């Protein structure tokens, strides 16, 4: 983090156009914004509202030297490592959940010196996006102080000019591109989610460019009818992609529950073959289809109906 980054982020954003115009594009077109060696922030958290349709397309197109950042990372970051697209992960946690054990591909890459795991506490990473979203170079916090996390991350402390208290200064994080999946958006990019918002709002407002995929594209009137559900305004979104089941096999709150059997298959493949197992997963589920809609069609209506029914049962009535 340098003064240049902070000032440049502002100058660059000032230079963006903010027209109210149709921004609907295909995933293939949308992901062209991502260049090699850039920093891609992935919306959602763990296996919730992960922008899978966008990630699968990025993996299909192929990149190299990417940095990926995410609050809690699931196996999607392993796909970026195993495919050779990324070699650096900025996160607070990587895994799927206790029952699936440690992340095998991450271990292979980090323990082998092939990838870097830049570790922050959950709040510290959230405040990094928030500082950037606020347009300031850092935020003071009481978290991560005294820990080895603070040391290896190279953080500094700051003394409060009013109380002399010692606080951690968390540096702003400006991703080059943020990829998010939402419940609905209009063609201008006004984006709404139901349920928890994870770190999506700050991540998007921190990023240089924002790609949003949506379960459905709705009329601007429908957005206006529930304005408090709008998470991002049109001027904070660059392009919009229509992607039904765009978080599958992860969950989309209220719409479909995570497909844990799909996770089982992935973990079995990695246990059997390490990163090669993850590459076989990519061949089958990403490269085996022309686009994400075809992958979803391959999942089949019965399985998708089951995931929808499970989500329906989890809505409190």
């Amino acid at each position, binding site marked *: 983090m340098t003064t240049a980054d902070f000032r440049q982020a502002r100058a660059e954003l000032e230079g963006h156009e903010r027209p109210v115009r149709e921004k609907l594009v295909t995933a293939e077109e949308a992901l062209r914004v991502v260049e090699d060696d850039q920093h891609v922030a992935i919306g959602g*958290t*763990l*296996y*919730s509202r992960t922008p899978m349709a966008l990630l699968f397309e990025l993996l299909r197109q192929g990149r190299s030297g990417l940095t990926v950042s995410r*609050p*809690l990372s699931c196996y999607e970051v392993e796909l970026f490592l195993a495919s050779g697209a990324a070699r650096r992960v900025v996160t*607070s*946690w*990587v895994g799927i*959940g*206790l029952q699936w054990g*440690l*992340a095998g591909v*991450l271990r292979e890459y*980090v*323990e082998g*010196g092939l990838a870097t*795991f830049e*570790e*922050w*506490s*959950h*709040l*510290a990473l*959230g*405040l990094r*996006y*928030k500082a950037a979203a606020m347009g300031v170079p850092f935020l003071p*916090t*009481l*978290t*991560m*102080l*005294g*820990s*080895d*996390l603070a040391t*290896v991350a190279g953080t500094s*402390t700051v003394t409060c000019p009013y109380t002399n*208290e*010692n*606080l*951690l200064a968390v540096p702003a994080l400006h991703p080059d591109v943020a990829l998010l999946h939402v419940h609905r958006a209009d063609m201008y990019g006004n984006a709404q989610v139901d*349920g*928890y*918002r*994870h*770190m*999506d*709002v*700050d991540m998007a407002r921190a990023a240089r460019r924002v790609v949003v995929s949506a379960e459905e594209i709705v009329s601007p009137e429908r957005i206006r009818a529930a304005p408090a559900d709008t998470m991002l305004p049109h001027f904070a979104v660059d392009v919009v992609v229509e992607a039904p089941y765009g978080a599958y096999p992860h*969950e989309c*709150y*209220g719409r479909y*529950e*995570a497909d*844990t059997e799909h996770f089982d298959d992935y973990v079995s493949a990695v246990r059997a073959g390490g990163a090669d197992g993850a590459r076989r997963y990519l061949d089958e589920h990403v490269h085996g289809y022309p686009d994400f809609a075809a992958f979803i069609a391959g999942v089949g209506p019965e399985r998708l109906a089951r995931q929808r029914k499970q*989500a329906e049962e*989890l809505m*409190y009535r």
Partner: protein
Amino acid sequence: MTATQDEIMTITASRLLADDKVVFAGVGMPLLASALAGRRQAPNLTVVLEGGIIGAQPLPGRLPISTNEMRAAYGAPMLTDITDIFLFAQRGFFDYGFLGAAQVDRYGNINTSCIGRHELPKVRLPGSGGANDIISLCTEIFIVTTHEPRRFVERVDFVTSPGYLHGWGSRAESGLVFGQVSKVVTDLALLDFEPESKHMRLRALQPGVTVDQVRAATGFELPVADSIEELPAPRPDELAILRDLNGVTD
């Protein structure tokens, strides 16, 4: 009904939670302990999960695997974002914080990052997640973990989550001026920390466990409190509620 090790730990942990408090729990044992307390002595305990969930009321038999999913959000009166949840913690709203540990040392420091060197680890573990924030920001922190020498180590390989750092006043000197690690719950014992040195010490034993057994399972010299009690065994009603929550039918 014979209780498993996990059930014994969960029940011991649940008894630490008082009514009308707010607990910041993770999934697994912390959430189970909190839900159990909510059905017994603490009906107005508010369970907060880092996924932005305030007032979680998970359905029996459909407990969440992650703190960021619909199962965790069921019945919550408020959903917000992740950073916001931790800012509630930083403000001081959360009375209790619950943590597990891959490694914990004599000063209650926790490692969930790596075995060996951080740059090139022998084993890369999942990482902090919210653990560092919970131990730094909640008011009273409980650690729950199985008692074995490879977990209870002299000094953790990496301080992911600072307990009392090097003991004495070092936690506060680092800037962590709020919160304290108060208890460590294991399948063998209940431990706390000496008031001055902040060194972990044995406080009570699980039923049928001896001091020697606890010492043998601890990888550092373990002081013993002046009077050692035996913890009450899990009661049938506690076990029944716990198994109902877990969806165990027999």
